[in-house]
Every structure is written in C-alpha cells, then in structure tokens.
C-alpha cells in the first residue's frame, strides 16, 4: 500500500488551483444557487478546462482524452467538488456517460457524442428517476414505442438535475414489455431540443435550480440514438453507475468545511472570552470529523485503486457512497452546532457566520444520502453482494 499522490499529480493540483483562483468569479458560491449566471459560466469554464486537456483527461486519446493517470483525474474531482463543482453537470459526462458510450456506443455514436463532451461544449442530464420509480428504478414506465422509423417517447422523469440547461438527456425507458421488469428497458440518447419535451423546475430547499420534472409527449427519437442493445438498458445503466458513486469526490467538500470550522473555532470567542475550540464538545466534534474525513477519502481512493488494478467490485463504491454522504450530513450538523444560533442565517446576510457556509452546506447535504442510489439501496448492495445475505 502506498498513501501518497504521485508527485506529478500533486504538482498538477497546484496548477489547477491557480487556474481556478483565476477563473472562479467572486459571485461563485457553488452549482446549486439561485443565479442565472451559473450554467453559462460552467459551460465557459469547461471549455477552458478542455483547452488545457483537463476536462476528460483520463479518457483515451482517441476519444478526446489524454490517457491521464487516475490520480490526476482524482485531483480534478477533488478540487472541483471542493469548489462547489464549477464544471456544472459535465462531471457526469466525464465519469459515466462518456465511459458508457465507449463501452456500448456504435462507432458513429462515439464519433458524434464523445468529441463534443471532451471539448466541454455539451451538457447532459440523466433521465432515470420517475414519480413511481425511485429506488425501484426498473419499475419505470416511460415508454418508447416504434413509430415511422423512430422511437416515440411518452412519459415523465423527475428529480432531473440540470435539465433546464442540458443539451442531451441519457434516457432510460421501456421499449418492450418483458417478463421481468428489468427486461425491455433501453437506453436512449435524446436531444433536449426535440419538440414534445417540457422541463418544469421544482422549487426545492436548495433553490429553484436543483431539480426538474421532464415531460415527454410524443417525442421522436431516431433509432440511431439507441445506446447498447434494445431491451438491455438495465445492464447498460448498471455497468457504469458504480463509477457515478465515486465520481463526485464528496469528501473534498468536507475538507473545505472542516478547515473553515477549525479556523472559526480557534478564532471565535464565547461569552466568557474563551475560544470555542476550548469547549470539549467542539474539540470532540472536530476530531471526529477529521478522522471521518480521512476515512471517507481512503474509501474513495480504494475504489479508484481497485479500478486501476482491474479489480473493481460493486460493493466498495457503495461503501464509499454511504460513508461520504453521511459524513456530509454529520459535518453539516456539527458545523451548525459550532456556529450556533446564527447558523440559521443564510449566505449573504452580514451576520451569518462563515457567510452562511454551514447553513448552505446543511441544505445541500440533505439530498446526498438520497441521490446516486439511496443509502438504503447501497446497504442492500453491501449486504447482499458483499456479505452474501439473501434478498
């Protein structure tokens, strides 16, 4: 075992930080805020990353990458997530939509879709969840039927992040009625500008930008936009979803918050003139968070190590996802307790401690155990595939 990033990767981290310091505008607070400037900015930002070969660096050269080692790729994941993910939705293209196309796409599809992804020119969203198909994803009912030389899609997706800005949608839908619900699903690549698609934002605790409903009303999708075998969409979806679970370096944001909390606790005095950091509960809270931050980071790195050794499994990404997302919840709550009553005040309020950082994190931590496969589903994966327990 070896617990150090390669020197080149660390050097690259410095370069990337300098680039981000220069490129991130003062108003940038993170991806999910109520601000119309966000998506146009992320598109511009991704194109600049692409110019430097930093957007899809771990992809093979033939698909617009530079075959970078996995640890340089991890540096990008960490630095981006730490900064509130200024790539916008494009981390999904990099982490699993692109790799899915490489695994299942035709030569034409690869040519058509991968290059624009690598150039940072295109935003994708993921059309999986439906009102009646959340954790039970295979119960989805959006239908693609055969019409004149194309599929005709009808149905509804929900909790679709980035749908207002996305150019394309990775759509899992039902093309055929199989004997089992996992059969008859297919993966379609859908142009979001096709007539019949309606996107309706859902106002959520995280603001108006975070989630959407997407309605499909007789949407024509050409047959050449079927990804992978017809009726085999479940396998296509599952093949790369494990990548998604470590694709966002959830631990990286924890480090930013932890450093901010340590600084706050050592420099803020309580009513007796003592730094908050002298309180046993504060000391205990920060120590617990620090150890868990290390563990979250290592659990994520373990998945990447295994992938690069060709020894990947389904269980370790689930372990990493549960641990990291629950750590994000924990630091939100410990952090709010440390900043105290004024932790209720939102970003932008002059009296909000740390400019509302903990308040903002707490809100955005709520979906983490739910997104990317709920933690209950992850625990099913761990107990069934990892420990051999019956379904």
């Amino acid at each position, binding site marked *: 075992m*070896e617990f150090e990033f390669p020197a080149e990767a660390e050097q690259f981290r410095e370069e990337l930080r300098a680039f981000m310091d220069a490129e991130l505008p003062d108003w940038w607070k993170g991806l999910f805020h109520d601000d119309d400037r966000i998506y146009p900015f992320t598109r511009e930002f991704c194109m600049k990353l692409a110019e430097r070969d930093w957007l899809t660096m771990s992809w093979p050269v033939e698909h617009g990458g530079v075959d970078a080692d996995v640890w340089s790729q991890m540096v990008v994941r960490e630095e981006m997530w730490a900064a509130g993910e200024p790539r916008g939705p494009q981390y999904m293209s990099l982490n699993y939509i692109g790799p899915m196309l490489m695994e299942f796409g035709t030569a034409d599809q690869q040519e058509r879709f991968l290059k624009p992804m690598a150039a940072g020119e295109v935003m994708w969203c993921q059309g999986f969840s439906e009102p009646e198909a959340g954790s039970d994803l295979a119960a989805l009912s959006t239908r693609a039927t055969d019409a004149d030389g194309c599929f005709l899609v009808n149905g509804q997706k929900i909790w679709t992040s980035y749908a207002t800005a996305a150019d394309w949608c990775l759509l899992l839908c039902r093309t055929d009625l199989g004997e089992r619900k996992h059969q008859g699903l297919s993966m379609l690549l859908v142009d979001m500008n096709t007539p019949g698609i309606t996107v309706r934002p859902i106002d959520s605790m995280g603001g108006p930008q975070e989630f959407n409903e997407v309605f499909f009303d007789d949407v024509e999708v050409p047959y050449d936009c079927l990804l992978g075998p017809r009726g085999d969409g479940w396998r296509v979806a599952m093949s790369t979803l494990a990548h998604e679970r470590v694709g966002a370096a959830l631990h990286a944001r924890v480090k930013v918050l932890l450093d901010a909390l*340590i600084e706050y606790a050592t420099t803020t005095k309580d009513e007796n003139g003592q730094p908050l950091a002298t309180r046993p509960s504060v000391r205990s809270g*920060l120590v617990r968070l620090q150890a868990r931050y290390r*563990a979250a980071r290592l659990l994520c790195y*373990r998945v990447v190590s295994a992938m690069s050794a060709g020894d990947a499994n389904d269980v370790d990404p689930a372990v990493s996802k549960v641990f990291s997302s629950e750590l994000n919840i924990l630091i939100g709550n410990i952090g709010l307790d440390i900043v105290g009553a004024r932790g209720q005040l939102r970003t932008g309020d002059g009296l909000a401690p740390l400019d509302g950082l903990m308040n903002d994190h707490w809100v955005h931590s709520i979906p983490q155990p739910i997104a990317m496969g709920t933690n209950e589903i992850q625990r*099913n994966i*761990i*107990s*069934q595939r990892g*420990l051999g327990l019956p379904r």
Partner: protein
Amino acid sequence: MDLMLNDTQEMIRDGARRFLADSLDPDSVREVEASADGVNAEIWAQMAELGWTTLALPTDIGGGGAGLADLCVLAEELGRAAASTPLVATAGFAATFLQAVEPTAVTRDLLSTLATSGAVITPALIDAVGRDERSASSSVLFETDAGTTISGAKAMVPYASVARVLLVSLTTPDGESAVVAVNRDAAGVRWTRHGATGGDPLFHVEFDNVEVPADSVLARGRAAERAIEAGLDAATILATAEAVGCCEGMIRLASEHASSRQQFGKVIGSYQAVSHRLADMRINTDACRLLAAETAWMLDQGHDARLEVAGTKVFANEVIVDMVHAAHTVHGAIGYTTEYDLQLYTRRARAFCLSHGDTDAQTERAAVALGL
C-alpha cells in the same frame, strides 16, 4: 497512491490465515483463555520461528526489515482467529520503544533478544493507581550509591507471566520520569493475573525493592516520554488492526447467522433491519482498516502522525462499540452464550476500545494535534 495490498502483504495475509486456520480453532481459544498464562504460546513460538514476530525489525539485527503497515496485516489475521499473542506488546510497543531510546549495550541486547529468540518484552506503564499509560507514575526509581532499586505496582501488564523483560515507567524522587528494563525473574517482582474482558492476559505486577543494574535505566525525562509515545503509537495502530480482525470475525458470524436463522418464515438476513446493521459493520470495519493502514504507513515513513494515530483510535472506539452491540443484536440470545463463538470477538473488541488510549484521552491528543 495504491490502496491494494502489495505482494509481501498478500503473502503475509495468506500465509498467516492458512497457518492460523490449521493451528487454532475456537475451542483452543477457550482453552487458552482458561489457562494460567492466557497465551497461545505454541503459536507465538511458531510465529517467531517463521520470522513473523520480528517482521518489522531492521535486517541488521536479524529482523525482516518490513514495516508496521506489514505487521498490521498479520495483526488483523490474529484478530480474525481470536488468538492471544503478545504481538502488540512486543513487536508493537517494545520493539518501537527500544529503537526510539538512545542505543546502549542493554537496548542492543534486548533488541537482539527480540529478534532471535521470540522472547516476550512487555510494557508495564499503567500505574496501579493511574488512569492509563500516560498518567504519572507513582512507582519510584531510587538511585543511590548502594545501587538502583524500584518500588511500586503496575496494573494491566499484558503477558507478564511469560515475559522475559518488563519495560517499566517510573518516577524518580525528583519527579523525573524514567523507563527501566526489569527482568521479570528479578527478586521482588510478583505478578497476579487480573480477571479481564479481553483476549490479552493482564497482570497486576508489584515491585518490592527490586534491585536492577544501573544501565537498565533506558531513558529519562522527555526522552523517556517521547520513546513511550512512539511505542504507544505503534502499539495503538497494531491493536487497531487486530481489532479490525475481531470485527471481521463478528461480521462473519453475524452474516452466517443472518443467512440461516429463520423467523416469520423468512431468513432474518432478508429483513433490512438486520441486513443494514451488517452493511454498517462492513462499512465501518473497512474504514478502520484503511485508517490504521494509512497511519501505519505514515509512521513507517517517519512522518509526524500524532493526529492520525489519535484520530484513528477515536474513530475505531466509536464504531467498534456500536459494532459489538450490532453483532449481538443480530444474533439474539444465542450470541450471549459462552458456547457460541461471538463472545470471543466482542469481548476482545470492547476491551480494545478501552486500551491504548480511551476516547477521551485520544480525543484530547488529536485536538491538540489539530491545533485546537
């Protein structure tokens, strides 16, 4: 960055697992626990012969030249087998301590004893009236023209009855701390075994005017404290790896039970109230293992790892206490019986959480290292 076991570590794991499967079963664990010395003496002797107990000692004194990280792989296997060996005390504490003090003829002699004979050298740090290893000692070192003597008593000394040498922390009449190597057979040393929860046999050791050679005082003052810290850091991480092995034992038994026990017409492992507890045990055990491995690696590299050692112990204490009860809950009443194997693991795991720095003590150490 590479979190996969390397070839050496895989060899240690596979070799130790095979060896322990062949030589130790739960019944023999029970026999050892009931014996006077409480140690798997034959296993320790064979491990010494195989070079495993001296794996992390430098090659120039006959060790294997490997690191604490490699030793952790062995410790986990010992934990899985619920073996009672002085690996943590001897290869963890004593070996590290003896390399951290100013080298003398005595320390060289003790290290070569460790390297060649499988001898047990064990720490005697917790004062009979003290809270833990780091509390001030009321046992006293007297140095006069007539000779050097020690007096006092130590609690919870592991493996004292089979030890050749005890590394005893003391205070001089001037209030300076010191560590003295005491032959366990020296006149005036008496030991009685504690009844205790865990798998390591612990002894109350009294020193009644024990005469020791003047050069057996191995370190004094800050140097003594620093060497004790170094020894405790290594022992803490090694003990964590051993506890991870106990957790693996708990997970194995609980998974087997949950996969076979039926209630309400179904195997209980199909209920998520049960299976999700087990998933959490898997998650937290993996986290403990990785924290211990990274910390061991840092110590091997010579990095300052005070924060990491203490933080690892705080985390392990917290999650292992929960795991103990989760494992018992999954088992129901059967897990509480002595004829069932679960208690072999859960007692060891719970004792670990109180040893090598309890949560309060390690939280404070970590907080200071974190700059709080």
